[in-house]
Each structure stands twice: as structure tokens, then as C-alpha cells.
């Protein structure tokens, strides 16, 4: 469980990025943190593995205060995939990249080999095993970064903007794969702007604006609230927009899923 207790955070250059955030994330939850550019989303999740320590307040991960434990130790439990893979990748081959953390954590070479193969296959980048990560496309680099974190099987996986640069098929894979991780009782935390992706995943949504949490609830409840959505600089999913445009005909306004939309429309038409 991750507990964020009235956390404030000010960067060294003076910007106050978090202004009193409290949040509890139970084990096994799937949660999307959304909000405008500069709302403090990435700053918040960097507190979950101890990369940042609160200026005021505290963050407790499985009953351990993040101030009292090293990032290296927390990382074993909380894996973090950066928004920009170039801030994370540095090895000469994809294989070394994925093996790097495993060696640091002291895994046996046999186990490392198995885990690397498993992770590369999972993310569809096995053919690039011997290639330099920097020869790959943006979307592929992003998947290598993800593989390198999943390889050590952390209990909590944080993905910062996982859908950037991914095509529709890769996004579908990513969605299945997140749901699969979640089904294995892992906690999955995504930071994202991708409203359509969130509408398809339907997780718990935490909405941030100006360093504060302004809403917390189910995707259906949050993404279909026009006032909240505008406040957070996001746009409602297209299906919601369609139904909001028909609200005067008595249609529900809390629809985000295309198949749910069909069901409602068919029952009305055949009513």
C-alpha cells in the first residue's frame, strides 16, 4: 500500500509542484493520474519510489517511510518507467539494458538470461536483443524501457505516459498487458493524457491541477464530468462527447465505452 500524507514539494529552483496532496493506493489497484501539463503528476509519482522526498508531509510504502530507505531498496518493490526512454536507457545493447538492474539486484546469470528473454518477448522487442537501444524507434525504445523494469518483477509498476509514440496496435497490447499485470495483483499506476486509452481501461482516476488533487473516482464518473475535465485541460472521450450532445433526449451522460454506447442506443431504438 502507498500512503501519501499531506505532501508538499518544492524544487530547488523554487517551483512548488505539490501543494498538499493526500492519497492512498491499496495493493493491486489500477490507477490513472491525469491532468494538465505541469500539474505535478510526474512529481507525485517520483515520490512513490523515493526518487523525490517530500519537502513537507510523508510518503509511506508498505509501512516504510520513503525518507528512511534508499531508492535502490525501494526500486525492488516499485518499478518506474520514465516518460522519455532516453532518460533511462544507456547500455550498448538492448539485452544489457534489460539485464542491468537484474545484475544490480544480485540475480544469478541463468535467472537473468531467462528473465531478459521473457521480458523482451513480452514487449515484442526480442528481435532487437543485440541492437543498440539508440538505433530503435521512439516507440520501440519505450518498450525496451518497460521491459527493463518488468524484468525484475516489481510489486508496483509506475508508467509515465506509456502511450506516447505508440500506434493503435501497440496501445491495445499495452492495455491487455496492464490488465494482465493488474490481474496478477500488481499495483499499476499510469500517468497519462491519453483520454481514449483511459476510457478503454476504465481504472480509478485521480485528477490533478496546480499541484493538488481535484478529483478522485472511477473513470466513468470523472471523465464524463465536463466541469472537472475542462479544469484539468483534458477533453472528454469521444463517446462521452456524443452522449453529452444528446443529453436533451434523455440519454445517460456517463458513458465512456463504445460497446456500452451501442447497447444503450440499441435498447432505445428497439425500445
Amino acid at each position: 500500500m502507498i500512503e501519501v500524507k499531506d505532501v508538499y514539494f518544492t524544487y530547488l529552483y523554487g517551483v512548488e509542484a505539490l501543494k498538499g496532496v493526500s492519497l492512498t493506493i491499496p495493493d493491486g489497484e489500477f490507477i490513472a493520474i491525469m491532468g494538465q501539463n505541469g500539474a505535478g503528476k510526474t512529481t507525485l509519482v517520483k515520490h512513490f519510489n523515493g526518487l523525490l522526498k517530500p519537502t513537507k508531509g510523508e510518503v509511506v510504502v508498505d509501512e516504510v517511510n520513503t525518507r528512511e530507505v534508499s531508492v535502490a531498496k525501494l526500486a525492488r518493490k516499485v518499478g518506474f518507467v520514465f516518460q522519455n526512454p532516453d532518460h533511462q536507457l544507456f547500455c550498448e545493447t538492448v539485452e544489457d539494458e534489460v539485464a542491468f538492474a537484474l545484475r544490480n539486484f544480485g540475480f544469478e546469470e541463468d535467472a537473468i538470461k531467462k528473465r531478459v528473454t521473457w521480458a523482451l518477448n513480452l514487449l515484442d522487442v526480442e528481435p532487437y536483443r543485440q541492437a543498440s537501444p539508440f538505433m530503435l524507434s521512439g516507440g520501440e525504445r519505450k518498450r525496451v524501457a518497460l521491459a527493463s523494469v518488468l524484468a525484475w518483477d516489481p510489486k508496483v509498476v509506475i508508467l509515465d505516459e506509456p502511450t506516447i509514440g505508440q500506434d493503435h496496435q501497440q496501445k491495445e497490447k499495452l492495455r491487455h498487458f496492464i490488465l494482465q499485470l493488474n490481474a496478477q495483483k500488481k499495483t499499476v499506476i499510469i500517468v497519462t493524457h491519453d483520454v481514449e486509452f483511459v476510457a478503454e481501461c476504465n481504472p480509478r482516476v485521480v485528477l490533478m491541477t496546480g499541484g493538488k488533487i481535484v478529483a478522485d473516482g472511477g473513470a466513468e464518473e470523472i471523465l464524463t464530468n465536463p466541469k472537472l475535465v475542462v479544469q484539468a485541460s483534458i477533453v472528454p472521450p469521444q463517446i462521452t462527447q456524443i452522449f453529452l450532445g444528446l443529453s436533451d433526449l434523455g440519454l445517460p451522460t456517463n458513458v465512456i465505452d463504445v460497446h456500452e454506447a451501442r447497447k444503450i442506443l440499441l435498447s432505445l431504438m428497439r425500445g
Partner: protein
Amino acid sequence: MDENVFANDMAGEALAVIETRNLTYMYPGATKPAIEDVSITIERGEFAILTGPSGCGKTTLCRCFNGLIPHFYGGKLEGDVVVADLKVVEHSIYELARHVGLVFQNPENQLFALSVEKDVAFGLENLAVPRDEMRKRVDWALQMTGIEELSERSPHELSGGQQQRVAIACVLAMKPDVMILDEPTSFLDPAGAQKIFEVINELNKKLGVTIILVEHRLDLASKYANHVIVMDEGKVALDGEPRRVFNSERARLIGVGVPKATRLYQILRESGVRLGKVPVTSEETSLLLREVLKRD
């Protein structure tokens, strides 16, 4: 400023601004072509979306439009590519740059000067534009992209959305006939992305700049486009009007992320409900559904 700045340049030229015929290209050392037998025409003033799965050849094709291929990358090019009446293989990148501007996916890779206006002026200095004209064009480009108040700021202390506008201003100042934008909003929140698409749309509709937008996220951009090209494995898979392309079975099979507004139309049709036409925006779908619901 005069909104018809491009009008004079347009007079007397052919309708097509980009034309490729059986274009095939192989990077040096590659064993198979990155693009193969591509024949497309983009007409002057079009707003075209170029999409398709990662690695399908979109970026390679764009590099053929501004001469980076073959002049910078080398490799083996067959077939023809003509841009603004210039055969790309016969003209330098420098000459082509006057006609085709490329906005990078990540603005950090493009911006480097100490102030926004210096960054915007850089391309003009390279083209040896006279000082007075340069001042005018920089101010105009900043105004068109809505960032006049940022002119003295350092590009590196701006937000992602502001940087993306600066990157567009840099290219706009060179008054290209064609502007290619490679996922120009990928780092922006949806409201910020919408603003950028509106800026691009204004350049297209008011100034007649031909737009080629490389994009995966079709839900936000589709309403502005009048031409969609889908590539798959180096070849052109679909080429035509957005409604027709999005509604084709092939688009779904290739894995194009058709807008949900179109997807709803499709799955309703599978259930026997026919709407008047194929929608691409949520407004259109609402209107079409309203007709059907009222009729019942």
C-alpha cells in the same frame, strides 16, 4: 499582416505540390526497402494526415519530401519524387527547405538558441533574408502561433506546449509551401493539443499552407483533414477522403486507431442500424444519432 502572403507564389503552378511515382527507397546497408512503390499526390492547400503502424515508413516518406533522402541519408532511391515542381534528387536540401518545412516530433531536438526570437530567425539567417524582412517575418510567425509575449524568453524554460509552438513558428517564418509535422502534440495534454491543431488548421485555411500531419491520435486531428494516407509495411495501403479511409475494413485490419465516433457508427451498423453517412467527429455522430432517435 497580409493574409495572402502565399497567394502570389501559388499563381500559375500545377495543382499538385507533392507527387511521387513508384518511389522505392532503401537505407544504406539495409536488405529491404523502407518504402516501396509509393505513388501519391498531395495537392496544394490540402490538409493531409499520414498514419500507419510504427515502422511503416511514414518518417522515411517525409524525409523524401525535404531532400534529407537521398542527399543526407544516401541509400538507393528509385522512382520519382517532385516537390513544388522541383525534382528532389536534382535539388539540394537547402533549395528544398524554401518550400518544405519540417517540425520535429520532440521540440527539444529542434530548439537551441538563447531566445525564442533568435530561434525563429535562425532559418531566415541561413536563407540570407535581409534584416528588415527578417524582423517582419519573425514577428508575423510569433503572432500567427500566438507566442509574441515569449519572444525574449529562453526556449528551454518554456512548457512543452509553448516549445511546440516555437518549433512551428521557426518553420512558418520560412514561409514554406508545405509544412510537415511529425506528431506535433505527443507531449501535450488534450486541451493543449487541440490548440496546436487549431493553429495548424488556421495556417492551412487562412494562408493555404499545405499540411502533412504524421499522427497516430486520430480522434483529435481527423476533423481538420481532407486527405488521409495510411501506410503499412512500406507501402501505401489506403489513400483518400477521411470518411472512406476510416470506414474501410482494411484500416481496421492494419490497426489504424479510427476515431471512436467512426467506430460507434461501424458497430451500430453491424447491429443493423444505419446512420446517414460515415461520421469522423463526435458532433457529427451526435447529429446522425439524433435523426435516428427522433425518427423512432
